[in-house]
């Protein structure tokens, strides 16, 4: 488990840094060519974490949970973060000022031993993937949008799996798993995905 975790972590960090450096270079080039875009480029460069946090929040806008997932109309959207406190911190900051579909957003940091189920969105850092694998069966039918960060086979991947392509943060979507979890992911998001597992032929 450890080496796997290390490997994953290392590769993730290296990838992040590489992405960051490339992004910076791109930003520098872009600043000269297109001064318009400089601000956003700079912001992306500033924090990949923040980008991921924003993405997590945005998924709330494009995914539909079954009504049973929420206790009542005012129940908050619960985002659980496992093994990524920094991200959780950024998320918490963002969640303060954001509402998703009229609901407040709550962020929960999962410690070791905390059950993975119970949230609407579950972010599992690369180091915590074995926990995800262990909870896979219990999560399969639960209406939880699992998100992993750059998980590669044979490691388990969430319904959404962040990947970096062409220096940009993108994601893969497992439509089969989403369907099993009674989640309806907007086709618009599917269209943006790098890859979609399981054709949605319905």
């Amino acid at each position, binding site marked *: 488990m450890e080496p796997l975790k290390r490997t994953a972590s290392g590769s993730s960090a290296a990838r992040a840094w590489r992405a960051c450096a490339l992004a910076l270079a791109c930003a520098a080039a872009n600043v000269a060519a297109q001064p318009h875009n400089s601000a956003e480029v700079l912001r992306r460069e500033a924090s990949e974490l923040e980008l991921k946090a924003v993405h997590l929040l945005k998924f709330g806008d494009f995914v539909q949970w079954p009504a049973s997932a929420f206790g009542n109309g005012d129940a908050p959207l619960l985002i659980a973060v496992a093994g990524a406190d920094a991200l959780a911190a950024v998320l918490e900051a963002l969640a303060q000022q954001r509402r998703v579909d009229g609901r407040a957003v709550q962020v929960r940091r999962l410690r070791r031993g905390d059950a993975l189920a119970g949230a609407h969105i579950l972010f599992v850092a690369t180091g915590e993937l074995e926990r995800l694998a262990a909870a896979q069966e219990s999560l399969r039918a639960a209406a939880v949008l699992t998100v992993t960060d750059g998980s590669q086979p044979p490691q388990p991947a969430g319904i959404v799996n962040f990947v970096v392509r062409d220096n*940009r943060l993108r994601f893969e979507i497992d439509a089969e798993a989403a369907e099993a979890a009674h989640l309806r992911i907007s086709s618009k998001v599917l*269209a943006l995905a790098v890859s979609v597992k399981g054709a949605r032929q319905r």
Partner: protein
Amino acid sequence: MRRLRDASIRVKLLGLIALSSMLSLLVAGAVMVAYDLVIYKRNSIASATTLAEIVGSISSAALAFGDRKAATEYLGTLRARRDIQCAALYTSSGQLFASYQRSEQNPCVFGAVQKAAALVENDELLVYHGVVERGERLGTVYLRASLDRTARVLRYAATVGAVLVGALLLGLFGSSLMRRSISQPLMEIAGVAQAVTQRRDYSLRAVKRGEDEIGQLTDAINQMLAQAERGAADLKRANERLLSEIEEHLRARDEVSALNATLEQRVAERTQQLEMSNKELQSFSYSVSHDLRTPLRAIEGFSSALLRNHASQLDTRGQDYLQRVRAATQRMSLLIDDLLSLARTARAEMKRREVDLSDLAQKSARELQEAHPERQVEFVIHPELKADADPQLMRVVLDNLLGNAAKFSGKKPDARVEFGHTLHNGSDTFFVRDNGVGFDMNYAGKLFGVFQRLHSSAEFEGTGIGLANVHRVIARHGGTIWADSEPGRGATFFFTLPATPPTGDVHAENHPAGRGQPR
């Protein structure tokens, strides 16, 4: 250039159709264009707004997850819309996220984002539309669409023009139909009218094609022609009648003039013949009278000598016979005298001068009283009766008229003969009146004929020549003579002697219708 007035009805109608259709099409076209521009603008705004919404909706995830490539790709689908010149996506913070530009020739300027609106600027439509997902504003879509209203108006104008041309063609087609239904009948009527005018053939008729105004016109013209035909026929008949009358008159005139020409000749011939026969007759009667007198004188002389010298040798009967012979010879002598007188009055040369008729009448009366002392006749002679006449001949007239008057009244105890003057129809007229036996006016026509007698010679002696002689004298003077009478109540003889005698010496051989009594 021909004036509109001279243009044919077909052209006028065509012009009318063309003008009205043009006007209505122009007005309709203008209204349609104006309306369309309003609708077009509204629709364009709606369409562009919808498009912005769709683009925004499609791009919302790309915007949310910062996928510029996808967003640019999505915006690129706008290429299907030719009117969209520029498009852009702005992030919620107002940063330009992705853009689209239809052509390089028309570069787009992407300024600061504005709040959602649709506005028209310089024939271009600018639309800003918010991208919202689950109530969260993710950014703004910007669209710039060219309205190209000028092209649209031009397209409309072209359409209207095409319709106009079509309408004109239809109008031409319609006018050819109209030519059949309006112009043609009118032309036919005009042709008939012209033919009638030129050939004066009123039997021509226009052909009626329908019950419209032209049909009524045709009827009216046909009725007019029928009347004209009747009038012309009447006129023709009247003309023919007049012509035949004129011919007749001409023929009659020719006949008359021919007759006149021969008549004058014939009159001249007859006059000559008459004159010759008159002269022959006069010379005959003169010579006969004259030659008769000689043996008569011998008979009378020897019979009177026989009676005077040898009366003793004759018995009473013989003497009586001789007396009868003498009386007959005396009567015959008288007859011869009268005949000679008649011949004389006809032959004698007339020498007119002023004659005192009263004086002549006095002489005549005196001689009558001396010749017939047994008659108790009172002669009343009006004095100072004068005339322009031959005295010898007038003596014959007065001797005869006074003698007749005395003769036919002499048997009455209070016999009265009057010679006087009166006015008849305004002209000087002399008269001889008696209160004797008179005569029946039915025989007045015989009065002045030779040897015509109304009374027997046993009753009143006479030769029947006297009044004929009188009539001849009066006629030679240019006057007239007539009589008025009643049996038993006397008779009056009137005669006139015109002051100016006629140029010719008229021989009155024929007996004019006079009135009087032959003796």
